[in-house]
């Protein structure tokens, strides 16, 4: 066991710290392109989000290993440095880079499988936050069984003509582009008939209908395609290889849904609230029933954070056995966060139900919002039940579901 990053990272940590000091209290002058994105309101420097993104890239604090010609920093891929950046930014409360499905999923996919032309056209504006992407995967009849998707793409006169419908499409209404799974080979078997296409969202024939979710925000959309026509070249990988292309990035999404450091920060926020709030003059943290629930969750949060160190370590030390350890992260992380947010509500009793702009609101209603939001994350990106199938089948070697005949 050696939790020290080593002397070669000491200077790097100091550099990051002095950057954080310089930009302490940095503030955005523009409204986010995607509502509910990270917001920072304390004083200090004022920059636009896009400028901030560029500052981060110039310093190597974002898009570290993306080559310079595609708008990245052009450095080596270094997990420890990424970790130091995340930790120092979090400690100093400096906003991180913009996230989103374009940055988290499309960029890695293009770097791995895109053509030279696609890389130079899309990666830079995406990293700089100038091109927002949405993901067109799920359909009304293709959720957990994603590979049964039916949105059709036909190659007619050198163009893809797309018809069908997507659902659960986050940020579609703010996006310039969609990366989309489309059935282009109807005769091929289920998984072999799919292609990965890049669709400009201003193409005629696209209709976006916002889908208001239980948090009362339109976090998702339905997207309808009627004879949407795009160039033949807007395909990543070859025809019928879309499933493999998409799977290259699904792993990125699952890993990013439940960040243990964010969970620890949220726990600390809950502890502070419990030290402040009272019932009949008694602090919540001193009331045994609430206190025990808090400490019980703290045990889980600590275990999950220690666990993330183990997974991190396996990336630096090939050969460490983390097969099941990695598979459980989405399931455990999202369920844990949901439970933690639920306690944030329960300790407040009736006050915990207040929402939006109500008087007596605590923490901007974030406990209720995040409690509901994480229920969405428990379902999205492969439901908890699908995760349990994956763990039991691929992790523990239990048999797959038997195929039902004739359905």
């Amino acid at each position, binding site marked *: 066991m050696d939790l020290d990053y080593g002397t070669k990272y000491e200077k790097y940590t100091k550099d990051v710290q002095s950057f954080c000091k310089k930009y302490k209290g940095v503030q955005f002058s523009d409204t986010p392109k995607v509502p509910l994105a990270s917001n920072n309101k304390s004083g200090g420097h004022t920059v636009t989000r896009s400028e901030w993104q560029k500052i981060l890239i110039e310093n190597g604090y974002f898009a570290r290993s993306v080559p310079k010609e595609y708008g990245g920093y052009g450095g080596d891929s270094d997990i420890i440095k990424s970790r130091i950046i995340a930790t120092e930014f979090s400690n100093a409360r400096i906003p991180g880079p913009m996230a989103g499905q374009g940055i988290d999923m499309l960029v890695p996919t293009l770097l791995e499988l895109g053509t030279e032309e696609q890389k130079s056209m899309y990666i830079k504006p995406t990293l700089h936050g100038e091109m927002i992407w949405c993901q067109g995967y799920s359909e009304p009849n293709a959720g957990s069984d994603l590979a049964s998707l039916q949105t059709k793409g036909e190659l007619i006169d050198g163009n893809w003509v797309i018809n069908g419908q997507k659902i659960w499409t986050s940020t579609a209404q703010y996006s310039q582009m969609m990366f989309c799974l489309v059935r282009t080979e109807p005769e091929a078997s289920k998984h072999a008939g799919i292609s990965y296409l890049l669709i400009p969202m201003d193409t005629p024939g696209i209709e976006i209908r916002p889908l208001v979710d239980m948090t009362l925000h339109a976090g998702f959309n339905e997207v309808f395609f009627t004879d949407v026509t795009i160039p033949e070249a807007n395909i990543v990988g070859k025809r019928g290889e879309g499933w493999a292309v998409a799977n290259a990035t699904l792993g990125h999404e699952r890993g990013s849904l439940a960040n243990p450091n964010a969970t620890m920060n949220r726990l600390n926020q809950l502890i502070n609230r419990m030290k402040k709030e009272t019932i009949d003059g008694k602090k919540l943290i001193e009331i045994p029933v609430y*206190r025990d629930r808090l400490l019980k969750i703290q045990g889980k949060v600590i275990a999950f954070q220690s666990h993330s160190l183990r997974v991190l370590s396996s990336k630096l030390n090939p050969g460490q056995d983390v097969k099941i*350890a990695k598979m459980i992260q989405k399931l455990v992380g999202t369920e844990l966060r949901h439970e933690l947010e639920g306690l944030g509500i329960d300790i407040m009793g009736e006050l915990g139900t207040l929402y939006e702009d109500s008087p007596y609101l605590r923490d901007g209603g974030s406990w209720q919002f995040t409690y509901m939001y994480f229920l969405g994350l428990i379902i999205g990106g492969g439901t908890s039940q699908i995760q349990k199938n994956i763990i039991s089948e691929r992790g*523990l070697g239990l048999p797959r579901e038997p195929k039902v005949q004739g359905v």
Partner: protein
Amino acid sequence: MYFGLSEEQVFFQDNVKKFLEDQASLDVIRKIASGDSDELQKEIHQGLINLGLNALLIPEEYGGLGLDLLFAAAVSEGLGSGIAPISYIGSYIMAPIAIMHGGSNEQKENYLNKISSNKIKFGVGLSEYIAARDDSGLEVSKNKVNGKALFVIDGENATHFILSTKSGGMFIVESNDPGIELIKLTSIDKTRSYYEIILQDAKIDLLEKTTSSHEAINKTVDAGRIMLAADTVGASQVMINKSVEYAKERKQFGRVIGSFQAVKHMCAEMAAELEPCYSIVWHAAHCFDSTTEEARLMACQSKSHVSEVGKMVSKKATEVHGGMGFTDLLGLHYWFKRIGMNRQLLGSPELVRDEAGKIQGF
């Protein structure tokens, strides 16, 4: 940066597991549990002494191996997986730590050398420091002790005992003292023994540094808790492995039951909850070894969290085995009971969590 057990730790743990597979089969455990096989138990104990279990933590200057608590945790995991019917946590982990941190140089010289050469063996009873039940509790005056201690662990063939007052002063009593009476308690866990000790004017050797500071006893308890958590992790992993094996073989409705999601999901839930337990136990042991600020919190939270997961795993694993899980035929209940015992020793989860709260100033 490396988070996990080292090659040496895994190698040693594998040796412990292999030894127990060979020497402490379920048939052997059954014989020992029924109470008429002292010889078998002594052989297993001796075999593990030969591997060096008694000397793990003791510094080299006292004839020990000078290894750290993470190493000891790796061993504890191995012992838990094989439900080892021997003394370990009290005799070879808590006792040396109590003496190393609470004893004078002379006491260290005297006792540690003898533990590492297997000339003496300690039982340990600190339950009254954590939560005194009924009328238990020890009073020390001058060089004598009176009262009783409950749930003394590793008392089997002990030559000495380390006990404590409710306020945390630790002292040593010899088992051949005329003022000592040992009463064996009958618990669910037949793989290890638990004693009540009644003392009347028994002579004590006070661990000098424990009268004015809680540091030594807290370290001893922390280490014991991390070891119990590690034991539960090892035992829980075996219960999961047995469940998965059983689910792959047992057929109902023309299918192996492991192909039903109800069963698969129970297995996945057990695995998903247990995996982070390895991490928190190793991390807690590492914090103990490097005496970081959060060491005490980590010890408490590893014990209470792993106890909760162990409870869930032992229940679900039994259920996966259906009616057979409930029988004595499979012997699964030995692991169930071992986990159940570990949960209560050195503080049940609620008590340990409350302590974790106090440590953080809540």
